[in-house]
């Protein structure tokens, strides 16, 4: 069954069509979420929310863009909303105290390891993801879509609503910022 047939069946709330759509795109949604939020449980939760939104708002999909582009947009939006909410909670917690009521730290500092990275690159990749987490949201998303999802510049542009050259500029800035972050990291640990 092709994409158009699946979408038109889903608009009629066909369960089988929904199941096929989920099975076809779950890895894509999960991988994108994981790259942006860098937490396995959060990525799973967000992926479920993405498909729930797809089910509920499929009637608003007009078919002008590809279904996958629409799916990426929903995923990116959900992930960025989640990150913003997490940041504001952290800020509030910092203002109250660095320690909880039972004297535990609330600051989260675990290294994220992407399951798809080769074993010999895991340690370096963990440092890269830590640096990636410090990037501005748009640069982070562009980097994840290009490097982790493997989208071309024009495809990234379709998701973000930017031209190919704008995406190129965004990725150049992202790479430069990542290098600066890594330089700071290595300088700090060398000292």
């Amino acid at each position, binding site marked *: 069954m092709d994409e158009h047939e699946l979408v038109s069946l889903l608009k009629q709330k066909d369960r089988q069509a929904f199941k096929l759509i989920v099975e076809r795109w779950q890895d894509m949604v999960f991988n994108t979420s994981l790259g942006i939020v860098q937490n396995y449980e959060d990525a799973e939760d967000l992926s479920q929310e993405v498909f729930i939104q797809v089910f509920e708002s499929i009637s608003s999909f007009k078919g002008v863009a590809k279904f996958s582009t629409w799916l990426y947009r929903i995923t990116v939006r959900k992930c960025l909303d989640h990150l913003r909410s997490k940041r504001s909670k952290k800020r509030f917690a910092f203002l109250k105290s660095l320690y909880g009521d039972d004297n535990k730290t609330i600051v989260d500092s675990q290294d994220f390891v992407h399951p798809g990275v080769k074993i010999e690159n895991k340690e370096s990749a963990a440092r890269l993801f830590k640096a990636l987490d410090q990037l501005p949201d748009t640069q982070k998303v562009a980097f994840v879509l290009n*490097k982790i999802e493997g989208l071309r510049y024009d495809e990234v542009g379709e998701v973000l609503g930017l031209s190919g050259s704008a995406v190129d500029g965004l990725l150049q800035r992202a790479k430069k910022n990542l290098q600066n972050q890594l330089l700071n990291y290595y300088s700090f640990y060398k000292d």
Partner: protein
Amino acid sequence: MQTVIMKNNFDKEINKASSSLDGIQRAEAPSWFFTKLEARMLRQADNSKNYWENISSWLTRPAVVMAAICLIIFINASVLFFKPFAKNDTLATVSEQTSSDEYSQLSTTLFDYETIKP
């Protein structure tokens, strides 16, 4: 010399980190993803159905219905029998007359415009 060696080492580490994502495989969604998703959607549907069921079951309780009927009867009775906003007649007539006099002094008719000389 040592600075140059350190810089070279940094560059090497940075390049290593930058290329650590080469050949990265797409992460797979957790097992039973669709089953868990469906269970969550059913839970959400149940929760919203339960909310309206709770409201409607509360509204149809005999005590709530009786209280609502009594309240409506009380409001109607108070409007009909107690007349809380009724005016005093004498006072109304005097104030009406005063208003009328003031109005006649203030208002001008076409006749007034023709007779009043500049």
